């Protein structure tokens, strides 16, 4: 006869490992700012209850399975007829209700809190950074400083950052686990979140929402600098970095994985993808792969449309740079 209780220790590894999570330095358990810390408090609160559930149910399960197992001794035992027990059933309906209530209240509090500037930072003026995700890179615009970076973002430490998120194409998700939770970036939409880094340091951020071939490489670095170092960096960029033009910006939007780039102006001058009627830049031909080619439909509002009727299916003729059609602005 098999001893079913093997399973119990096996499954019980989970809470033990969860508890040791802090020692393992898992990024979610090692917050570097007030937003991530707020969420971690909620997670820890829920872990207590979940651990309770796991211990109680596993214990009860092990006890019942062991005690009432069929053995050669109890061959003639005929189990009693038992329809149920109103009292017991009410108990195990109400205990989960209490647990759910205990979890709901802090959850809702935290959900509302995360919408605002983190506690203790209300008096500090936030810095706004527009985040634009494209296939497969992150573009950060600093409208107040008038600079733009690709695949890295420098922020002053101990200062609330107001990230305004949007996408130039596919739906993506902006996540810096050390600093806080994530939010989707969507074209023609603006989502928003506050993050703060306690102290200078480098943190990994990435896209978590699958968006095609280059998805795995969609990482960026958040570098929190002291306010002085940040100001110096801005000044350096303003004086040394090249300017971005609409033409080079369209090239930037083409599907590719890139390294870091820095510019001394922002693309917000000609397009903010968060606007309802923002211009669209799509490059369907550049996404061809080994599958059977389907028909591509020309969107009238696409600003990268070529004026080469009938030729558009040719894969070798894909250099579309500079052919963006500036003449269609009147409609918007």
């Amino acid at each position, binding site marked *: 006869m098999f001893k079913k209780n093997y399973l119990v220790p096996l499954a019980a590894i989970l809470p033990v490992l969860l508890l040791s999570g802090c020692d393992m330095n898992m990024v979610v358990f090692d917050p570097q700012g007030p937003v991530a810390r707020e969420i971690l408090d909620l997670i820890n609160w*829920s872990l207590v209850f*979940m651990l309770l559930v*796991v211990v109680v149910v596993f214990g009860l399960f092990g006890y019942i399975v062991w005690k009432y197992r069929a053995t050669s001794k109890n061959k003639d035992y005929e189990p009693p007829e038992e329809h149920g027990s109103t009292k017991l059933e009410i108990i195990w*309906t109400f205990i989960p209700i209490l647990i759910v209530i205990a979890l709901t209240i802090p959850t809702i509090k935290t959900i509302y809190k995360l919408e605002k500037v983190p506690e203790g930072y209300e008096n500090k003026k936030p810095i706004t950074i527009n985040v634009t995700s494209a296939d497969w890179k992150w573009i950060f615009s600093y409208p107040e400083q008038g600079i733009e970076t690709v695949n890295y973002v420098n922020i002053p430490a101990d200062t609330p950052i107001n990230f305004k998120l949007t996408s130039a194409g596919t739906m993506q998700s902006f996540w810096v686990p050390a600093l806080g939770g994530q939010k989707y970036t969507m074209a023609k939409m603006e989502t928003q979140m506050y993050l703060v880094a306690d102290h200078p340091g480098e943190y990994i951020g990435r896209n978590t929402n699958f968006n095609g071939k280059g998805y*795995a490489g969609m990482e960026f670095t958040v570098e929190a600098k002291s306010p002085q170092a940040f100001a110096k960096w801005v000044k350096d960029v303003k004086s040394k970095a090249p300017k971005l033009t609409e033409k080079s910006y369209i090239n930037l939007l083409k599907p590719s994985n890139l390294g870091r780039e820095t510019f001394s102006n922002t693309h917000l001058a000609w397009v903010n993808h968060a606007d309802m009627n923002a211009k669209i830049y799509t490059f369907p031909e550049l996404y061809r792969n080994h599958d*059977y080619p389907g028909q*591509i439909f020309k969107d009238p509002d696409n600003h990268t449309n070529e004026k080469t009727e009938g030729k558009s299916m040719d894969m070798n003729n894909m250099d579309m740079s500079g052919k963006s059609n500036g003449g269609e602005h009147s409609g918007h």
Partner: protein
Amino acid sequence: MGIKWDKFFITGDPLILGSQIAILLTMIGIVALVTYLKKWKWLWREWFTTVDHKRIGIMYILMGVLMFFRGGVDGLLMKAQTATADGKLLDAQHYNEVFTTHGVIMILFMAMPLLIGIMNVIIPLQIGARDVAFPQLNALSFWLTFSGAMLFNISFVIGGSPDAGWTAYFPLAGKEFTPGIGNNFYAVAIQIAGIGTLMTGINFIVTVLKMRVKGMTLMKMPMFTWTSFITSIIIVASFPILTVALALMTFDRIFGTHFFTLGGGGLDMMWVNLFWLWGHPEVYIVVLPAFGMFSEVISTFSRKMLFGYKSMVFSIVGIAFLSMLVWVHHFFTMGAGPAVNSIFSITTMMIAIPTGVKIFNWLFTMRKGRIQFTTAMLWALAFVPCFIIGGTTGVMLAMGAADYQYHNSLFLVAHFHYVLIPGVVFAVFAGLYYWWPKMFGHMLNEKLGKLHFWFFVIGFNMTFLPMFFLGLDGAVRRSYTYSAETGFGPLMLVSAIGAGILAIGFGFLCYNIYWSARYADRNISSDPWDARTLEWATASPAPFYNFAKLPEVKSLDAFWYMKKNNDGLELRENEIKEIHMPSNSGLPIIMAIVFGIAGFFLIFEWKIAALVAALGIIAGLIVRSFDYNDGFHVPVDEIKATEKAWRKVDKEVKDHVS
């Protein structure tokens, strides 16, 4: 139409080339074998045209096991690719296709067919009916599901696999970002299978409501019947949403509309909402029948009636109701307002309440029982702790604010595998070991069954437990690679090894099916487990008319009390009357083939050809409406002979619990 033949077959990848050759050889092999054995006529008469719910169920199960294999290979490929940092087995495109088809196949073509297959075999028997309410429609349901599945599977070698994830989020799944026809396979193949599922839902609602045997009131129905009934209601409520969403997707991709696209004012968030409005209920569609199976198995092998039957019924109804009200929790991170996220956090957490009630009811069913550790029962037992882990992490994910840190990470992947594998796959295994004798007249081997069990359960935990921690450390889903600096390597390797162990477990199941079919003892009683419900009151395997004389139900667990009171078990000769049964029909399979062909043309965007083929579907409907064949009568002598064959012999199980 400008067919590009050079692009028709996928070329340039040794893995795909290997599969193309393997598929071709297998097909030639099957055709040659059937021809050699002169079995074509038999296949057509006994299986392809059958309307018998038990045979349709068996075909569903066969298809589910095959698709489990396909989806499993996809899973193993993913695990092999991510076993080490910077893996080189698959490139990004191939990996994307593999996880997309893994998801679709496992949910729609593995879990659903296996569950619907067992429902098909068992429900009419459990409620004392001779067949489902609409037998020919049932056959059409199966063949459409099969047709959709085959269409979806050929995408791997012809035309290109879908590669936008099983959720196919727009704008990615639109032509602007995936201009090949790969995702057309998603839109069309799932549509065809979905129509079949929708019809199954209607069929089972009517069957359960109208075809129950005398005396079986709703509150005397076996729990598996109850859960299947509620599942059917969820199917009818939610599958139309999928139908509409996929139709709009098809218009977007093939005819250039702008429902969800980036350009032309499309609304990508609308797709996400529609998808999960179907997608979340879908989780309960697969999990509820599984709960029913566990209820039957636990009750039988504890030799006790189900504890708290009424609260079980209320909790499944509650789960069904809540299942339609929680879809937003799949995208808390989409920037909906805090009020919206709060409300959906609450509704989601509320699901834990009826689910908790069920868990405690199962535990207390076992209390004071006499628990036999058969393979079927082992699966039900392993379900409890594994599902608790899935459930508690589910509550954690339900907390909107905390979800911002879990979303799209491997924590989420671990969670839903901990729900779906214990909740569905374990249940299907329990159901197969439990009902196998009823389907085939022989048991599955218990020794091999236990090997299957231990390898599978240990492999499963090893595969998915590490993913919780990887997720909390920032590892994301669907990423084909990661760098060594991330430090994910060791746990990823553990997970990959676990997947291998799990696969060995599945191998034992396949071998067990083969071994038992060849060598298992045929001399078994019609009720080898000393079970409680009506399906065990007739022969194993059940005769095509199910019951010579319909039993009469006086209480819950009807068969148990029939045995206890020795009431209604005997069959007197003068009680046997002619039985009216439905005739076979070739129309369902022909219509499904036409559906498949029309779908194939539509996928390749050969619109006129698709239109012409679609006329064939309409022709099939017309033929059906002029079909005046209303079945045949089984003569008394034939029933007598069949019944004598199994009732007279005093059969005994040799060693069924080793």
